């Protein structure tokens, strides 16, 4: 089943065309990786999926993006869309408040006030993001006291707290050390049971290790898209092969 269906998506930042005729389906409960050199549009595309691009001035988008068959650039509540399609950013960005309040912020935003319910959500989210054991005794401490890797898992927990369907991850491990990275990769694989995951990565091994499908982007175009095993072993395009084998990028 497809979570997202994109048809002829074009996107401009003022005069610069960042995405060109992107047509692809993103299947549910799988990990889809976007790879490609810097400036190829992969981050732009992932940000189009929850309309974070709306915040960028001069950004114009045409074509069609559907989530569960519903057009997301039509007349819908953007806040509800972002609740359904959570996001984890490149650099860990916990809010300058306690660990507990970081997680409770999302549910509170969507109207949950009961202390009991919030406690439950905080614990479940932290458990799901595999950081409960490290934080359960310091929930009232500032989130900024955590290490970089812990902060990123906290951000994943925060994204999970509003019970999204989809988790968008924009290079979530690029600012982390190898041990933290492998923890997050394990986590992502575990999460795909319940969530659809789209991950942008600069790390080819990472895409090969964790993703089910891979899309290769170059200069705003989707060059090749298919099963990860196939893309990495028998790429159909010369450019894909050159990139994967490290000849450019």
């Amino acid at each position, binding site marked *: 089943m497809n979570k997202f269906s994109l048809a002829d998506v074009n996107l401009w930042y003022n005069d610069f065309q960042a995405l060109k005729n992107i047509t692809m389906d993103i299947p549910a409960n799988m990990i889809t990786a976007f790879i490609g050199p810097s400036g190829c549009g992969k981050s732009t595309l992932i940000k189009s999926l*929850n309309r*974070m691009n709306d*915040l960028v*001035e001069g950004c114009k988008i045409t074509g069609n993006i559907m989530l569960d068959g519903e057009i997301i650039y039509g007349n819908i509540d953007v*806040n*509800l*869309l*972002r*609740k359904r399609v*959570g*996001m984890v*950013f490149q*650099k860990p*960005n*916990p*809010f*300058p*408040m306690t660990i507990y309040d970081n997680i409770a*912020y*999302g549910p509170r*935003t*969507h109207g949950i006030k009961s202390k009991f319910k919030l406690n439950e959500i905080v614990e479940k989210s932290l458990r799901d993001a595999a950081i409960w054991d490290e934080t359960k005794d310091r929930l009232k401490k500032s989130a900024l006291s955590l290490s970089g890797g812990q902060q990123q898992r906290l*951000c994943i927990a*925060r*994204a999970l*707290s*509003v019970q999204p369907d989809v988790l968008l991850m924009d290079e979530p491990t690029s600012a982390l050390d190898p041990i933290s990275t492998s923890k997050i990769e394990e986590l992502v694989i575990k999460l795909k049971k319940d969530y659809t995951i789209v991950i942008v990565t600069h790390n080819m091994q990472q895409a090969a290790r964790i993703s089910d499908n891979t899309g290769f982007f170059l200069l705003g175009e989707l060059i090749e898209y298919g099963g990860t095993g196939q893309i990495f072993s028998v790429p159909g395009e010369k450019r894909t092969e050159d990139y994967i084998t490290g000849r450019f990028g």
Partner: protein
Amino acid sequence: MKIAGLFKMKRRKPLDFVLFALTWICIGLTVSVLALVVGYVLINGVMYIRPSLFAFQYTVENQSLFPALVGTLMIVAMALTLSVPIGVFSAIYLVEYAKRGSRFVRIVRVTTETLAGIPSIVYGLFGFIFFGVVLGWGLSLMSGAFTVSIMILPLIMRTTEESLKAVPDAFREGSFGLGAGKLRTVGRIVLPAAMPGILAGVILAIGRIIGETAAIIFTLGNVARMPNNLFDTGRTLSAHMYALANEGTHPGEAHATAAVLLIVVILINALSSRIARLIKAS
């Protein structure tokens, strides 16, 4: 740095030592000037502080500064009540809502910067004519407070703008990414993060109000008596000091007033930073 370290440095690199010595001289100069002023005011003032200076009524005998102290606190409270909400909300609009770099924002910015550069006597004259004469408020707490609130508005706007801009966009993205709207993002994430900077601006503004004389004398007047209501005249500590020093008959009381003024400023600053800490902790 220990003295031994200094000598070690001297042996290694002469230029390092010279720069190091220069920074220390500069720090020493700054601190000693400050210490000199504070010391001078306190030493000359404290010995004249006596209970009768705090008598409720000012008389020629007691030279009480109490009415002026009350006037100062009233003006500070009233001016802040007027300008902090307006300044903070304007800054929020400029940074969070207005289109970045738009013509309107640029015009507002140039205007506030110009306002910040106008000498206070001009504000005094304006306040006297507009609030005092045109609106008919005369020399009063209202005229004074409105006038100084216009004076500190640019200061509060600028410091608030700067501290809002200093809040990383990553916080905003994180909040929007969870489905929070603009209002919630600004109110729950951006404003708390910017609060220490905003309070620093408010402290500066308080300092400016307390130190103001020209605009105050033009609008509040300089009558040494307890104001009966908001449309009554009065004086502030600075204006009181100016009057005492000007008359030349009570230099001791003028010094005492200066000492009290200094202590009031220190107390207000301590209070503000305590509030800032409390807000940060909650």
